[in-house]
């Protein structure tokens, strides 16, 4: 057998700390063959991103790698920077986990994409632009001709992620490293992006290393799965085998924690048992609505003299006391916009927005102050929403200080540690800075911060997108506990329908700034009325490779898109022949 595309052999990554080098990952080994998709799954913070970044030596300074990394037969660990640079982008492309901070805020996504395109190929500026627009179209960016000239901060989370993906695949690499590439995408777009990757894989013989916590995605695309925990590989096998008969205890736990859309999770109580405020009728606007939007329009101002962008086109939405409302919908449909408006970060242009008894239409500053005592938010992008100069402990407990709830510094620290524990982060890390955490860990800091104040209403914008299913399950439990204990209400934005199903009392489906459908969770998710909702549900991946294969066959119309391992070897041989 010829050598695989990527071989990682007993790779350990070490970080420099106050007292010497500290190992983060231990003897990680796995291979990726051409045309093969390997999924790297596992606990949040187990070292997946670190391992992925170490391949191209993209780790932050103060780190070192021990072990062997071979790409295409050649050792890349000791390769001089100049040689590695040849590989970067051209032969190995990377999609980073957090797209907001991964894009330079001062360039349009177009110019960053064009720079990527032109760094490896001779292209005229005009050609590159055309190609860039094509690529944006490929990743289902709406109105690519326009979006190409937008700056990252003008895009929704999912749009940024797609820009990032477009950049990575622009060079048609031999190996694609995708770190949580679809966390911010709704399931339809996710499916399309995955199709795109598979299509490329088929066309180029590309190897894919995908990091994801979404077992549905794993089942859908992966040939093999590498499971990591605590910096070590605990299991590594074929996808079907993993789902059928997981060998390791941890893997079993992981799979057990996966919520299935349409099947009430065993971990959680059924939705009928979900606590709900008495006398709540779903269809009409409740008198005790905690959050209520009436015919609300939200517009982003245009640049210079150009017209602005109307992100929300007059919607009615309400969250009543003790209720968790799932907000799902297309990426870029305005979910985050609603969330930001609800906490007063965005002014609404028309209509009304009430939080509890306060009208926050217009510029009611005093109302805002009152509002913020009771409302908290988990931001979609954990990296950019944490102050890089505050330790995570401070980040969590600062709101307590601001509200005057807890003025004693020592007690705040203790409280932060409790909260850290609740989101399953080592309380000893209270003095770490955000950049010292993994993506999922940062996300949990955001959650801990949001629950710290015992809010009446929480806006949770994709709060679990970067969490592995077991941590996710705990977080969801936490939400439910809170709902029960303090009767808190929540607008829960997510693209993960199964999560929404497990948690939400009601679901609102949003598309292009308009509500397509809303109603009780069971009804919307099991008996959807709107076509879009049906479409959405159909596209949600199921954590079962066999089901997924069938669905994919149905969708793409033929079975041969994914090639078995035998044929991979065959193609690899011929390719090898061409190359020599």
């Amino acid at each position, binding site marked *: 057998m010829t050598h695989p595309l990527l071989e990682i052999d007993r790779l350990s990554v070490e970080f420099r700390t106050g007292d010497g080098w500290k190992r983060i990952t231990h003897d990680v080994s796995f291979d990726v063959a051409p045309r093969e998709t390997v999924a790297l799954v596992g606990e949040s913070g187990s070292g997946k991103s670190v391992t992925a970044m170490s391949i191209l030596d993209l780790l932050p300074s103060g780190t070192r790698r021990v072990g062997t990394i071979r790409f295409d037969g050649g050792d890349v660990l000791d390769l001089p920077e100049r040689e590695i640079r040849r590989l970067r982008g051209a032969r190995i492309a990377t999609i980073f986990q957090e797209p*907001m901070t991964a894009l330079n805020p001062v360039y349009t996504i177009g110019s960053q994409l064009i720079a990527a395109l032109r760094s490896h190929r001779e292209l005229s500026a005009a050609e590159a632009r055309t190609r860039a627009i094509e690529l944006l179209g490929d990743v289902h960016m709406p109105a690519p001709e326009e979006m190409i000239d937008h700056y990252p901060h003008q895009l929704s989370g999912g749009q940024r992620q797609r820009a990032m993906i477009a950049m990575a695949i622009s060079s048609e690499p031999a190996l694609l490293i995708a770190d949580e590439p679809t966390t911010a995408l709704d399931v339809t777009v996710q499916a399309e992006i995955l199709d795109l990757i598979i299509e490329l894989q088929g066309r180029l013989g590309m190897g894919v290393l995908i990091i994801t916590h979404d077992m549905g995605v794993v089942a859908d695309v992966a040939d093999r799965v590498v499971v990591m925990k605590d910096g070590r590989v605990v299991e590594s096998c074929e996808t079907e085998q993993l789902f059928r008969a997981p060998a390791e205890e941890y893997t079993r736990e992981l799979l057990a924690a996966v919520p299935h859309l349409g099947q009430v999770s065993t971990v959680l109580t059924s939705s009928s048992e979900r606590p709900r405020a008495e006398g709540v009728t779903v269809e009409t606007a409740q008198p005790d609505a905690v959050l209520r939007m009436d015919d609300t329009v939200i517009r982003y101002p245009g640049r210079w003299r150009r017209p602005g962008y109307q992100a929300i086109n007059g919607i009615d939405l309400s969250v009543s006391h003790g209720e968790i409302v799932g907000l799902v919908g297309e990426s870029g449909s305005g979910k985050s916009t609603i969330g*930001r408006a609800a906490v007063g970060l965005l002014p609404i242009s028309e209509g009304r927005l009430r939080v509890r008894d306060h009208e926050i239409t217009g510029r009611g500053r005093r109302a805002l102050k009152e509002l913020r*005592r009771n409302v908290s938010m988990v931001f979609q992008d954990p990296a950019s929403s*944490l102050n890089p100069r505050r330790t995570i402990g401070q980040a969590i407990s600062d709101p307590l200080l601001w509200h005057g709830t807890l003025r004693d510094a020592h007690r705040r620290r203790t409280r932060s540690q409790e909260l850290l524990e609740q989101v399953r982060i080592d309380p000893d890390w209270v003095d770490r800075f955000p950049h010292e955490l993994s993506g999922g860990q940062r996300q949990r800091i955001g959650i801990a911060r949001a629950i710290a*104040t015992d809010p009446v209403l929480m806006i949770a914008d994709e709060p679990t997108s970067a969490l592995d299913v077991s941590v996710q399950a705990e977080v969801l439990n936490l939400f439910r506990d809170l709902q029960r204990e303090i009767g808190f209400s929540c607008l829960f934005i997510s693209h993960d329908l199964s999560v929404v199903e497990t948690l939400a009392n009601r679901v609102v489906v949003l598309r292009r700034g308009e509500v397509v459908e809303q109603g009780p969770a069971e009804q919307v998710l099991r008996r959807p009325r709107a076509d879009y909702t049906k479409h959405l549900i159909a596209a949600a991946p199921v954590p079962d490779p066999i089901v997924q294969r069938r669905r994919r066959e149905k969708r793409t119309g033929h079975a041969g898109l994914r090639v078995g391992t035998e044929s991979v070897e065959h193609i690899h041989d011929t390719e090898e022949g061409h190359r020599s």
Partner: protein
Amino acid sequence: MAVYVLVMLLVTAFAPVLAPYDPIEQNIDARLVPPLSPGHLLGTDELGRDILSRVMHGAQVELFIALGATLLALVLGTLLGIVGGYFAGIVETITMRLIVDVILAFPPIVLALLAVTLYGQGATTLILAIGVLSAPLFARIAYGQTLSVKREEYVDAARAFGAPTPVVIFRTILPNISAPIIVQFSLTIAAAILLESGLSYLGLGVVPPAPSWGSMVAQGQRYLSTDPHALLVPGAVVVVTILAFGILGDALRDLLDPKAKKRS
């Protein structure tokens, strides 16, 4: 360098005890004695005053002026800039336009002259004049940085979590714009010493015969071609001091940068 700053502070505190001579005592027969001469380690100036003693006493004057002025500029400027950058509209107009731009619009020399004539010569005037003159740069830097940083999501987050505006400004934004401000702090110390020297050169500095490094340099310049030590000695002290503050500033900057923490 920290050692140097420490030594300097000690010298400043104990100059009257440590200095071998009275810094204003003239001895015209021993004028412009070169360094390393018996009795005058660093030589004497054009009036035969012991340069070592003057440098030592001068440290007091200089640090008082330079640090005082720089602190004034830092506080005043940063406050104006950050507040102006954070709030748009009328606040911005008042801080950045009415105050900062107006100060900037006045040529320094006119401002210094006004200060000197209105408040008389001396250290306090210099602190006021140099402080006010240097404040706009802090303000502009703070302003520019604040404009960028206030759009960061973590600032939104702080606001969303109900941080009172002063907290958003001083606990969230300020630390994130601190790096260039710290650098500007050490730059301004240098600038203040230079400005003091320049003003002395133009006759607007400290009241003679009080020793200040700036006025020593300004005086010494007249003997550049014949007795360079009168310039070089205080000049070297100024260089080392500025260097020390520069390094200190850089170190502080690096210390406050969480990502750079592990570098050293």
